[in-house]
Each structure stands twice: as C-alpha cells, then as structure tokens.
C-alpha cells in the first residue's frame, strides 16, 4: 500500500532522511520509533505530501504530492501536537467531514464513544478544549470515516485509560482493512498495538522487525494489586487508571485495556518495593476470584 523508495530529504545542508526504503501493506500496524531528530515526523510529512523529497513516495501507486485529494481522502492523521485552531468544535467537525466526504454524525459518534460529547462543546473554540479533549476530537475525525491508512503521532499521549481502551477498540475495528503507522518516542507506549516495528535513527531505518501479534486490541484484563502498606502516591497513580481500593488502601482492583498492559506494568514498576502481589486475568467480566500473584 505504501512505498518509500530511496527517500531523501534535505533542509539546506542537513540531510534528515538518508535514502529510506520501506514497504507497508494493508493490515500492517507499524510502530515508528526513534529519538528526537530521528526523522519520524519528516517521513510522515513526506507520506502526507507536505514535504517535497527526492526518491519516491507512493500510496496505492499514487504520489501524495501530485494526487493530494485521492491519497489524503484515504488517510486519517492525528498529529502529536493539536493545532491551535480557533474555529468552534462543530465547525471543525463539519469542515473536516465536508472535505473528506464523510458524515459528520459518524465523527460525532466516534467522539462520543471516546467520551467527548460534541453537543456539549459545539460552540467552544477547539483551542480552548483540554489536551485530552483535543486528542479525542482529532482521533474521531481520523477514525470516523473510511480511512485506509491511519497515521498517528503519539496518539495516546493525552488520553485517560478509559479513552485509551475505546481507542484500542476503534483501531481493532479498522485493523483488517487499514494500514497503521503509529509514531512514538518509546516502543513500550505502542508495542501492544502493532505487528511491526520500524526504528529510525539519524534519518535511516536501523530496525525493521515483525513482532508477535498476540494481543487482542479490544481485550482487557482484570487486575488486583496488593500492597505491603498503604501509600498516597500509589493511590493517586492507580486512581488515574480508575482502580478501586479497599478501605485500608492495601488492595486495589480494576480493569486495564489489553494493549495497555505494558504501560500499566510500567506504572507498577515505579512502586515495586510496595507490591505484595499482582494478579492479571484476561476476561470480559470481573472474575469471582482472582488468583493471587
């Protein structure tokens, strides 16, 4: 679906992409990882036809620069930093839907699933929304239409665990028909979402690897965490995951989205000395009794 053929991008004398060759097919969910300045954003902008470059970038055989409308009508893009648009929320939804020949109600439905009721914010300028709300609306615009290529730059950075779970479900609904390119500084943020990892460093692809595709994007895990003593900082962190604690603050239970397990374990790792036990079980409903870990 996507072909990068010897793509070189220079900014004056600085060569930011150094002959990138890649092929990405439908069904590929690619983590594009690398440190700052690795060339991830430049590669994405070349893919979107926003940058001119040497070599060839093709989406279904079409150059995104020459065939902007044909290519970009297939692309759903979520930027890392939301643009400071002053137009009201509903206006933005209608503007995007109209350009993409999509139904604005479908976008609003997706926003609603993510926990953003467009009706409540319809007259509010986009720039005045919170970081999470902006992210949800941009995701809704990208996913609430027939996009075949999703380009997501740090898409979950501002989402709460509940919204992340819905986001993973939305991706699961698209995973057969679409290719996904998910850019992130850290692999553990997106590892469970993808079946391919591409690492970039100083403008070159240094790793291109398939990974086991075992995590069901729409799954979740019921978890129980027990502590050796109550701790306010831990209670605050786990509270952000919507976990409920016992009266004495020693036992916490809640639900974690399947693809979020690594991130969740990363949070627990910060309190490793406090942990007395962890139980995790993949299930749709809270189990009667969780085995102690």
């Amino acid at each position, binding site marked *: 679906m996507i072909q990068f053929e010897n793509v070189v991008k220079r900014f004056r004398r600085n060569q930011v992409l150094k002959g990138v060759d890649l092929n990405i097919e439908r069904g590929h969910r690619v983590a594009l990882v690398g440190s700052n300045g690795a060339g991830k954003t430049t590669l994405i*902008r070349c893919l*979107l*036809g*926003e*940058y*001119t470059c040497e070599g060839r970038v093709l989406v279904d055989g079409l150059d995104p620069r020459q065939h*902007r*409308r*044909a*290519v*970009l*009508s297939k*692309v759903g*893009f979520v*930027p890392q*930093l*939301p*643009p*400071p*648009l*002053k*137009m*009201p929320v509903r*206006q933005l939804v209608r*503007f*995007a839907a*109209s*350009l*993409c020949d999509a139904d604005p109600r479908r976008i609003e439905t997706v926003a609603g699933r993510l926990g953003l009721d467009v009706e409540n914010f319809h007259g509010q*300028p986009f720039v005045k929304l919170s970081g999470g709300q902006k992210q949800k609306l*941009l995701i809704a615009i990208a996913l609430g239409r027939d996009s075949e290529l999703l*380009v997501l730059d740090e898409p979950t950075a501002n989402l709460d665990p509940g919204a992340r779970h819905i986001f993973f479900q939305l991706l699961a609904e698209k995973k057969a028909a679409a290719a996904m390119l998910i850019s992130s500084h850290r692999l553990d943020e997106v590892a469970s979402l993808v079946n391919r990892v591409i690492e970039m460093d100083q403008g070159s692809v240094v790793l291109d690897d398939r990974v086991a595709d075992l995590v069901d994007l729409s799954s979740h895990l019921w978890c129980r965490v027990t502590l050796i003593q109550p701790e306010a900082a831990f209670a605050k962190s786990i509270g952000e995951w919507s976990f409920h604690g016992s009266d004495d603050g020693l036992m916490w239970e809640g639900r974690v989205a399947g693809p979020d397990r690594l991130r969740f374990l990363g949070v627990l790792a910060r309190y490793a000395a406090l942990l007395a036990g962890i139980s995790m079980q993949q299930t749709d409903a809270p189990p009667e009794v969780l085995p102690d870990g």
Partner: protein
Amino acid sequence: MKHLWLNAYADIVESLRARWFLVYTAVFGGLVVVLFAYGLAESRIMGFTGLSRLLLTYIQLTMAILPVFVLVTTVRSVAGDREAGVFEYLLSLPISLFSWYWGKMLGRFLMVFMPVFLAMVGAIAWGVIKGAAVPWTMLIYYTGLLTVLAWCFLGIGMLISTIARTSDVAQGAAFVVWLTLLLFLDLILLGIMIREQLPPETAVAIALANPLQVFRTASMMLFDPQLVLLGPSAYVILDNFGQTGYILYALLYPVFLGTLCAGIGYMIFRRTDLP
C-alpha cells in the same frame, strides 16, 4: 470550487475569533467615531463639508493605516499558523492546494475589507440620520479604491508569508516593503529626482508603479481633478491617461499587482514544503 469556498469560510471563522481582527476592526471603527466626535462632518475645508469632508479625511487616514495593517496581520497570522502546526494538520485533509491557498486569500480579503467598508457605511448611515446629504459618487469611488488597495496588499502579504518561513522574518519583510513604498511617495521621489538627476520619465514610472502613490493620486483626483496639488507631474498623468484613464488605471493596477504577487506566492507554495 466547493472546497475553495469552504476554506474561505473556515478562514473567516478563524479570523473572527483572532485578536488581530478585533484590533483591526477597533482601529477603523474607532477612526470614524473619532472623526465624528471631533466634528469633522460639520467643518468646511476646500469646499468640502458634511459626509464628503469626513470621507475625504477617512480615506487619507486609511491610506496610511490599511496597507501596513493588512501586510502585518496577514504575514503574522499566515506564517504564525504555519509555525503553530495549523498547516500540518489542515493540509493533511484532502483539499487541493489551489482551494487551500485561494480560499484563504478570499476569506482573508473579506476580513480585511469588511471592517474598513463597514466603518465607512456606518459613517454614512449616521450622517443620513443626522440629515446630511450622501455623496454617492464619492462613496462608490472610494469603495472601489479601498477594495483594490486591500486586495493589492493582501496579495503582497501572501507572497511574503509564502517565502518567509517564520513569522518574525515575515513581519520584518512586510514592514520593509511597506516602508520602501512609503519612502517612494511623491515628495521623497521628488527629492531623489533632484539629487540624482533622474530623468522625469523614470520618476513618473516609479510613482506609477507604487500602489500607495497610485491610490493617493487617485483619491486626490476626486476633489482636485486637475491635480494642482501634485504640481508639474500632474501634466504627465493627465496628458498620458486623462482623468478617466487614470481612475481606471488606479482601479486595475493594484488588482493586477495583488493578483500577480499572490499568484507568484501560490506557485512557490505548491512547489515547496507546506508546513
């Protein structure tokens, strides 16, 4: 075309909520209020009184303010949008570059023209309420001049915004362009002509190429048809163009210049990096 109008509308909605637009509207609205407050409509100078006198003063002040305002606000907001990531996101949507660029130009034109025009219409409406006669010919002529002046400097602003990669550079360049045009108004031109012993034809050509000077002469022509205030150069204008010819030139040349600049800006825009 649907996308062009859609983008024009989006730009209008964006501008309506922008700070530059509030300041811009306040300046021109405030100008009319001040002119009324100081009783300009009641004064009589060179035979002009009432609304004619007010319009005359308004147009002279507008000539001083409008170009620099249009230039600076255009380059700041367009280049600023690019820096802030607005281009990156909106240009990832399936809109053609033609619809994007010219839609923005069209939306922005309405936003820079309407406050100036509405302030003038507001002044006329107030004058009518007070029982003054409406100088229709003058109103239509000045509306035409304001339209082409706004278009001309908007086109120059779009070209600068396309070339300059940051809003600081764009703002600096816009200011230099405005200052250069200002320096080549007739008095300074006359000074250079005397000092450098330029042929008169060159001086006149420079004056005719300067949209500020063209606007100034054209606005002068209505109350001074023989261009007595201009001195000997009036002969060149009146001999070569005639009064009607020059009025037509004053209406067409800025449109041509603005469209040319915006067109060059578009050619550069579609060939270079967008965000």
